[in-house]
């Protein structure tokens, strides 16, 4: 996915762009509203992440203009303001969602996913591996022609395997992807979710195999 990050704090913007890159996304940074408008005109973004307090204006004005120009690109507002004061107003102005700084990146991803799902921009996100079709936006897999809904953690786990089929992922890596920093879980917790995925992939050619001492990888049954 391609993101436009409108944020005037350079350090935060840099960190966020790095974080997006780690997740395999592309994020362009615009420091001002003027930059943002220029970027929108030249590139088709999947999502705009908008800070509200910007040097050359109020993000809310941008939002209003963006909506009245009936630009379909969804917007998630990054707010650093009080939780109480202006949350409500943001949605009224046409933001698809908002998130309060600081945030857990996985929560931002969850919100992005929720917005994409709500707007129905899911169709082109389906990936195929063997006879498995997986849509990471809706969390739906089609195994042997039968669609099934994955739970959130199963979906995120499968997303990791789908990004690099055949690659071995360590338990620790998978845990980082699956659990938030506030969750206190043992490394064995990952086995529960791998187990669930295995059951769901059972009828297909794809399977998740254990690589002793190293981790897991998704392979196709020969």
């Amino acid at each position, binding site marked *: 996915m391609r993101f436009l990050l409108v944020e005037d704090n350079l350090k935060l913007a840099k960190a966020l762009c790095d974080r997006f890159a780690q997740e395999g996304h592309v994020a362009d940074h615009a420091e001002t509203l003027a930059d943002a408008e220029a970027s929108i005109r030249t590139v088709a973004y999947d999502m705009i992440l908008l800070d509200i307090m910007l040097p050359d204006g109020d993000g809310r004005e941008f939002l209003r203009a963006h909506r009245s120009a009936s630009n379909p690109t969804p917007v998630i507002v990054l707010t650093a303001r009080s*939780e*109480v004061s202006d949350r409500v107003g943001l949605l009224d102005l046409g933001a698809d969602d908002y998130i309060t700084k600081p945030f*857990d990146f996985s929560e931002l991803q969850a919100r992005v996913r929720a917005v994409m799902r709500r707007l129905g921009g899911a169709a082109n996100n389906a990936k195929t591996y063997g006879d498995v079709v997986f849509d990471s936006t809706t969390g739906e897999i089609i195994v042997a022609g039968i669609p099934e809904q994955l739970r959130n953690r199963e979906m995120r786990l499968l997303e990791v395997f789908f990004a690099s089929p055949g690659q071995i992922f360590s338990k620790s890596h998978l845990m980082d992807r699956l659990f938030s920093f506030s969750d206190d879980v043992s490394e064995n917790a990952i086995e529960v979710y791998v187990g669930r995925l295995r059951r769901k992939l059972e009828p297909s050619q794809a399977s998740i195999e254990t690589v002793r001492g190293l981790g897991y990888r998704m392979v196709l049954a020969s």
Partner: protein
Amino acid sequence: MKLYNAKGSIRRRLVLQLAAIAALLSVAFFLTVRVVAEQAATDTQDNILAASATSIADAIYSDGGEVRLELPYSAISMLSTISEDRVFYRVLVNGATVTGYDDLPLPATRTAQRGPRFETFSYRGDQLRSVLVSRTLSAGDRAASVQVVVGQTRLGLAAISSKITSTAVAIGVAFFLVATALSFLAAQNAMSPLDRLAASVARRGPNDLRPVTAATPTELVPLVGGLNSFMGRLRSALTRSEDLITEAAHRVRTPLATVRTQAEVIHRQMERPANKKALREMIRAVDESSRSAGQLLDHAMVTFRSDQLETETLDAADLLRDVVDRLSPTAELKDIGIKLDVPRDTINVQGDPILLQNAVRNVLDNAIKYSPADTDIEVQLTGGKSCRMAFRDQGRGFGEVDLEKLTKRFSRGSNVGDVVGSGLGLTIADDVATAHGGSLEITSNTEGPGACVTLVLPLA
């Protein structure tokens, strides 16, 4: 709570003072009328007495050295025109009584006095008003001194006087009553700009801090000026504190967001478990401080707004739906489902939407935080006597802790050492509920998982 010292009433003072003035004027009026009227009555009697005595004196003539008198009937009859009082007379020639009551006293003679002289004295048991008319008559070659005294009792005059007195009393009392009534109306009228001003201030909503523009009488201009400048200061202080809260949030959150994101980036790149663990602790510390800061600011905002509630009628189901939609992605990360159960009938509450939303969010956020993965949170809305929003989770509950204490600032359950939290969430919810005339009920299942937090609000 009595915030001011109500002492005395301008209206009452005005009425009392005007009434006292009216009373004084009534008494003065009464006295004047009485004196003038009695004087007039006395003058009338005196005139007739003088006329009568004069006509008697005129009837005395000298006939060849003899002084003669033919008492004119009219002299006596004219006196009976004013009253039925008894009449006495005495005619003296050279000091000897010629006719009449010879014991009728003569008014004290004073020299060099011309014209009739009047005197009032007691005679035969009655007050008598008498007049003396003196004449010098030439009787042949001698001069004869003639004195005529005519007296009349004053019973009729006393009757007139008492009639006048009672009339004067009646008029005086009536004047007093009318003046008092008018002074009451005048006071009312004089106070009406004050009442209007008070009403225009009292009618204002709790957030209306605009200057008073109602028509103001000159005397009240300093007061209204003071009030307006006070409200101006209050308004700017309120705006400042709201700005301060917003600004503080911004200042705290942006750097925390930077630190957190950078830490996440590095965490992803790190390999050594010890380093990862350290960084993980750091991120949790950042979360804790940002959460505490956020909730402290929320709490400040809630306290601030609670003092001046901006209420409107809200559909409780819509409110819950909004917050549930909002928090669902967060819950989903832990595979927690939120089951919303609302009745078909609309349940309305009267409240501040931002505060109520904040309260609901804090309770639900709390439930998500303490729920284990793969569980459900039930959110149930019920009506009836009051609006009840129940949030039932399958978390660890609150342990062995006094549930009353949980809504106090920074108080948390006894079993949450490992979960990031500030202990303000339920305090905020409780404050909001209390500000709306409701309450927060917490029930913990000591055996079996779960706690139920219920936000109880009065129906609109």
